[in-house]
């Protein structure tokens, strides 16, 4: 848990450096609300406080990073409450939830406050880089953002800043520490790249190349930090490959075929729902084969 929090620091630093106090306030609010909610719900259930395990802190951090810097405080607050309350505690707390809690909170906010979280809500940040997110700008006006800016994540996007560069740095550390399974980011990014490549080769990409698709939005951030949540992802390596591939494919499908500029959140939630099935499909055959059925 604390490895993941540490690995998030490059992303957090780039975001705070770009958006200053607005971003710092949003992140602190999300973390404080998530931790407060966890403490409160545990007390209501008459259970021991579990704040020390760092999981509420992590949910708050990921949720906070998934909102633009200037999101109204009450939206962040409500999303945090829902993330912990509905996304985690309703299932019985740590380890019991089916869906990624941070994504549950964010999905709730997107549905509850559609106007506030649409592309129109984006205002110039302190040092004013862009108006809308590169993904929504492309979707609405076909404007292709410069790739280097996109990859470094200095611009604004649907998910905080989601610097792909910082995500890769932190994510590789996570995989190296084995705090996240490398199979999920590998298959998710690989599949998304494959789908984007097909679209590019079909000549319908409008100048938005595979690299744009990978660097823009939350794809890399989501691959390393959201999809790898162990609780809501499959157990076995084979299951993880299927899970990651499903998310990667869905992200591109949602980006290209729906009204949403970004698809990571819905892709993760949809695949979360399939995890119990994936687990059942991918029970590994033991070394030496299954035990023969005993005939009495």
């Amino acid at each position, binding site marked *: 848990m604390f490895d993941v929090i540490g690995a998030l620091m490059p992303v957090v630093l780039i975001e705070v450096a770009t958006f200053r106090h607005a971003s710092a306030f949003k992140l602190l609010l999300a973390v404080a609300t998530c931790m407060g909610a966890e403490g409160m719900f545990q007390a209501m259930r008459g259970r021991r406080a579990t704040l020390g395990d760092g999981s509420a802190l992590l949910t708050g951090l990921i949720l906070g990073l998934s909102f633009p810097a200037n999101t109204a405080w009450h939206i962040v607050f409500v999303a945090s409450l829902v993330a912990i309350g509905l996304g985690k505690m309703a299932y019985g707390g740590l380890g019991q939830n089916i869906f990624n809690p941070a994504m549950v909170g964010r999905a709730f906010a997107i549905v509850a406050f559609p106007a506030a979280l649409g592309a129109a809500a984006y205002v110039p940040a302190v040092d004013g880089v862009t108006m809308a997110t590169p993904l929504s700008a492309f979707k609405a006006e076909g404007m292709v953002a410069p790739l280097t800016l996109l990859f470094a994540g200095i611009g604004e996007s649907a998910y905080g800043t989601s610097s792909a560069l910082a995500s890769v740095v932190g994510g590789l550390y996570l995989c190296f520490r084995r705090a996240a399974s490398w199979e999920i980011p590998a298959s998710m990014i690989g599949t998304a790249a494959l789908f984007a490549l097909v679209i590019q080769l079909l000549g319908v990409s409008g100048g938005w190349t595979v690299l744009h698709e990978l660097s823009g939005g939350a794809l890399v951030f989501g691959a390393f930090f959201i999809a790898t949540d*162990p*609780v809501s992802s499959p157990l076995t*390596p084979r299951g993880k490959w299927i899970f990651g591939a499903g998310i990667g494919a869905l992200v591109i499908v949602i980006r290209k075929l729906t009204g949403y500029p970004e698809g990571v959140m819905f892709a993760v939630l949809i695949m979360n729902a399939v995890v119990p099935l994936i687990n059942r499909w991918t029970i*590994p055959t033991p*070394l*030496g084969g299954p*035990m*023969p059925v005993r005939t009495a």
Partner: protein
Amino acid sequence: MALGGCVMIAALTASLSLRPFAGGVHPPERKHFAEDMPIEVLPTPALLTVPLHQHAGAPCVSKLKLRQEVKWGEVIADAEAFVSAPIHAPVNGIAQIGGVTTLPNGRHVKTAPIKSGPTQVDPAELKQTLLGGPWPFADIGAIDPAAIVAKCRAGGLVGEGGAAFPTHVKLARNEKRPVDTLLVNGCECEPYLTSDYRLMLEAPGAIVAGALLAARACGATRVVMAIEDNKPHAIDVVRPVAAEHGATVAVAPTKYPMGGEKQLIPTVLGRVVPNGGLPLDVGVVVINVGTATALAAAALRDRPLTHRVVSVTGAGIAQPKNILAPIGASIADLIKFCGGLKPDTARVIAGGPMMGFALNSLDVPVTKGTSGIVALTREDVRRSEETSCVRCGRCVDVCPLRLVPTKIALASRHRDWETARAYHLRVCCECGCCAYVCPASIPLVQLIRMGKAIGKDV
């Protein structure tokens, strides 16, 4: 020439670095406590409580009458069943009233207590008889295989590695399943334990003689001694003796549980033993180095299995030792011989820390399967509170049998036998790698063990 050299170098590298099985863990080895302590003979205890069921298979029935005088090596209990092994008097003495004891694994068994008599075999002579050379290697090739199997049965031999499977059952030839390789298991992958290591250093002749006898009995044409690469001295000592008699040494990478048959056979020979089957099914018989020495003594000197080497070790033991102890000696006697327990001892384990059983009493007898006694201190036994499974999958990564331990363990806890079966509960070898790595401190292997015990028809 150049090509031949390349092939030779390739063959050499291949023999030096075997690829280990997938999964497994590297627990701290902690062998330093007792690895340099030569095997000592335990002074004969006043009373020996000999359990009548020390092996896999049918229990034995005592043949003793009250106050009957017995001599070292005399049969005191036997069973009709094929899968069973007779039990012999470990000392000269007088039979007492039979009782019941609870073995470390929780099994309640009948006992044949023997009060030791005033005259016993001299310790040095005992060690020489059971382990010392020279051994008549030249004669082994002429012995009738069936006679060797008969001596195993008569000598009460069982596997000394832990499972205590009767050796004569393992070695009996089966025309349908011919054996080509005899593997001697000198891995001793459990942390702390050093009894097999000391045997390899002090009795390589007995081990090789036993291995050749076993190979002759089961019809194996190749004898391979497998030793982990963390025991270079043992490799140096065993290799020349083995080479002299046509056996080879395979150096296995150090990894727990390399000493498990289902890990060792794939690593050394590249063959996978089917679940529910035996190494025999892939043409292999595996015997432990302790069993090999017992086989040499039984077949060549007519000495049955009455003593075995037990490591008494760990930070909680005043003077760790490797002890040649009579079967039936109380674990308390062994610990006393090692200067007793240190005051900060928190737990005493029969067997190694990974697969052994914590004792609730030291008044438990040594059996043919007792490989060691490990005393852990408060510092070693760090008890951490169990938290929820977050499905991190570490247990899946380390399971050497490719199981999903968390699913089996939690299904066992909830008596969900359908799920436990779907995830292959019965395949588990209880090596404990899963519980060792679990970041949530869930007692995975203990839950699985419980599931196997109470979910009988799963």
